[in-house]
Structure formats: structure tokens, C-alpha cells
């Protein structure tokens, strides 16, 4: 096998992939529930604002809201089963399709939000992987490890994360060229975003005014943002550089909140970057109260 094959198929514990399934699946379910009100409110929008994207392009007109809501609710149920690893071979592809449809429909009203692209891509990828070979409900014992192992799947999720950031950096260079680095472009973007929010009755960002007064800071931030985006594929090369990159990318998103009041919950909660770390340790730490309760329960029944 070539070095590329050895690297791509390097082993990883099944629990790590399972932890990614649980964390990403749980977020997807919660996110869809949180969007239900907004999805239902689409019924009140003028039909001329319907601008279908992605798979929703098959529609010539908006769906009845009852149908939209039903698909969203079924999607939530499927995502819960996906997270639990229950009947995964059936529920996972259906959950991925439901999430793809529901979020595509949400983004089909004149605005592509970019807050859930990577989430949807990750759920689709997880549905194609043996992500329920561990930490799942209902199974008596874990299956034998597949010949391909689990490491490739985790690398794939990480590569998809890196690809999305790389695309963002490429878009900046293609649309603005190197002028994007002069600091003025970023300053104007921050100013215009806050202007729109102020004029449309929404909250502006706490640091926008302070930052705009410092042109040198703008140049540094422009360089930093582009370095993080174009440098994203380097995060696949090793643990140390992955950690350095993910903290930089997370800091970038915190900066976007502080300067534009734009929230990308999936990376802000660290989930976009979870494939780059030992996800099973993170999930095990978060699940510690649940594990302690189970241990006490089994002690009592013993």
C-alpha cells in the first residue's frame, strides 16, 4: 500500500467515530428543533421570495407548511435514532436525507446562511460510515471491525472541515484578490454588516466601533483570517498543527461574533473541529454525569 493509503487508513478506535456520531447527531437534532419556529414562519413569507437551492430545486413552488413541518419533525426523530445508533443502517441515511431537505428548504428563501453547510455534510458522511459500531443502544455486542477500520472515516470528516475553510479562503482571493489583505476590505465588511443590523433593528457587534478605528489591526486580522482558511488542509498533517489550527479557527469565529455579531454555532461549540481531536475523550468527559449515574445504578442493583 502506498504511503497515502497507509496514512488514510491508519487505525483509530471505533469509540472515536461513535463519539463523533453522538456529538454531531445530537447537535443536528437540537439545531433542527431550534429552527422549527423559523421553519414554520416560512409559511408567512411571500411566495415570490422562494428561491430554491440544492435538492429543493425540484420544487417549482413552496410546499404546504404542514408538509414542511412533518418532514422536519420526522427528521428530528430520525436524528435522535442516528445519535443513539439505533437501527443505524436504516435511520442514518434517512436522517441525513431529512436534514439535507429541511435545511435546504430553510435556505431557500433568498438567503444561504452558511451556518449549517458543514453540519449537513458531516451527517451525510457519518451516514456512509460504520459510525454505530460502538456506544449505541440496543445491541448485545459490538460487531467485528470492518477491513477498512475507522481511521479513514475520522480523517474524512476532518478533511471535509478543512475543505470548507479552504473554499472560503479561495473565494476571498477570487472575488477580491490580494486587495482583501489591505485591511480596508475587512473594515468595510465589518462596517456594512453592522450598518445593516442597525438599520434593520437588530443588535450590532460590541467591538466593531473600536476595531474600525485601528487600520493596522485590520491588516493583521485580514492576514490571520486568510491564513487560517488557506492553511486549513495543514491541520490534517498531525496533532500539534491540528490543535494550533483549530484554536486559530475557533478564535476567528469568536472574532466574527465580536465584530459582526454573526454566530456560527457549529464551530463555536467546537463540533466542526471535533474530528481533529480525540473525540471519545471529549464526549466521555461531557458524559461523565451520565456514566456516574449508571455506575451508581449498577452498584445498587448489585
Amino acid at each position, binding site marked *: 500500500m502506498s504511503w497515502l493509503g497507509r496514512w488514510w487508513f491508519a487505525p483509530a478506535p471505533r469509540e472515536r467515530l461513535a463519539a463523533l456520531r453522538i456529538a454531531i447527531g445530537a447537535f443536528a437534532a437540537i439545531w433542527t428543533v431550534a429552527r422549527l419556529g423559523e421553519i414554520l414562519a*416560512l409559511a408567512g413569507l*411571500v411566495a415570490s421570495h422562494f428561491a430554491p437551492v440544492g435538492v429543493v430545486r425540484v420544487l417549482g413552488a413552496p410546499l404546504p407548511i404542514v408538509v414542511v413541518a412533518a418532514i422536519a419533525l420526522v427528521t428530528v426523530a430520525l436524528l435522535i435514532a442516528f445519535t443513539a445508533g439505533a437501527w443505524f443502517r436504516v435511520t442514518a441515511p434517512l436522517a441525513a436525507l431529512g436534514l439535507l431537505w429541511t435545511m435546504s428548504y430553510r435556505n431557500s428563501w433568498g438567503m444561504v446562511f452558511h451556518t449549517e*453547510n458543514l453540519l449537513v455534510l458531516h451527517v451525510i458522511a457519518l451516514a456512509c460510515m460504520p459510525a454505530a459500531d460502538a456506544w449505541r443502544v440496543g445491541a448485545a455486542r459490538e460487531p467485528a471491525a470492518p477491513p477498512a477500520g475507522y481511521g479513514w472515516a475520522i480523517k474524512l470528516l476532518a478533511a471535509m472541515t478543512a475543505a470548507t475553510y479552504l473554499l472560503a479562503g479561495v473565494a476571498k482571493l477570487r472575488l*477580491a484578490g490580494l486587495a482583501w489583505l489591505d485591511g480596508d476590505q475587512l473594515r468595510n465588511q465589518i*462596517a456594512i454588516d453592522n450598518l445593516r443590523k442597525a438599520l434593520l*433593528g437588530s443588535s450590532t457587534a460590541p467591538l466593531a466601533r473600536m476595531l*474600525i478605528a485601528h487600520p493596522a489591526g485590520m491588516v493583521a486580522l485580514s492576514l490571520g483570517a486568510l491564513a487560517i482558511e488557506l492553511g486549513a488542509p495543514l491541520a490534517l498533517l498531525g496533532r500539534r498543527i491540528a490543535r494550533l489550527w483549530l484554536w486559530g479557527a475557533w478564535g476567528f469565529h469568536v472574532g466574527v461574533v465580536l465584530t459582526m455579531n454573526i454566530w456560527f454555532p457549529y464551530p463555536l461549540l467546537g463540533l466542526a473541529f471535533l474530528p481533529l481531536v480525540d473525540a471519545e475523550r471529549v464526549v466521555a468527559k461531557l458524559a461523565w454525569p451520565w456514566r456516574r449515574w449508571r455506575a451508581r445504578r449498577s452498584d445498587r442493583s448489585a
Partner: protein
Amino acid sequence: MTRWLAAIISIGLIAATLEPVVRAPDDDGFPLSTFPMFAHRRPPRVKVSYARGVTGDGRQRELAPRHLGTDEVMQAFSMLQRAASGGPAARQALCRAIAARVSTDDDFRDVTAIRLVGGWHDAVAFVANDMRGEPTGEVEYARCDVARSGR
């Protein structure tokens, strides 16, 4: 799962994720996107479309994104932009839709009319002035009355 199948899935999904790079950067989509956020060159002076409520005594009141039927400010902005470029019928349709929502909002019971407006602003000066500033030029796209049932 065999290594061959895993390799096919890997190549397929990475290729799909990266596919937008061969499109025009503005040819956005979902979930496969060029991610063009914050990427465009923008001058500091811009024309922004927004909606205003007009009270009986002629004052203007700021409306919220929910009056456009969404909690997302960028979606509200996009709707206003589309209506502004969509012609008189589209503008009136949006104006009436906003008026209908405002008519049921008790916090805005003093609003008697809706204006859809495009105003020129120096965005950097606006932010530097603590998010305050009047437009240097304004054009009214549409105006409609807020109809209220007698209470």
C-alpha cells in the same frame, strides 16, 4: 466495509465538498457552497434597503426583522433587496405583508403607514459615530397603509 469502498466514499465526498471551487465564486448553493461570506470588495458607501413605520404625526419608527416574517436579519435584508430590484408589484407585495404584521403588533399601534426605502450611508462613518447617522440620499420604493380593524 472494504478499503476500496471506503476510498470511493472518501474521494466522492471530498470531491463533492470541493466541487464549488470550479463554479463562479458567486454561484453559491447548499450544502455545497463557495462560502463567499465577507469575500466581495465593498466600498464604504453603500445603499441599504430597509423598512420604516410612519406614525400619525409623521415620525419614523424602526421596524424589526420579525415584521418581515423572519428573525434572521440577513434574510430580512435579502428580502428587502429582492423587492427593491423586483419592480413595483414585488415592492407593494412586501410592503403590504409588512403592514399586515405591524397591524397585529401592539408595540407599533401608532404606526399608520409603511415605507420601503433605499438609503445611501457611509458605513465606516456610521459605525465610528456609534451606529448613528442619517442617509446622504434616500429613495422611497413603496408606501402602503397599515389597516387595523376597529377595537
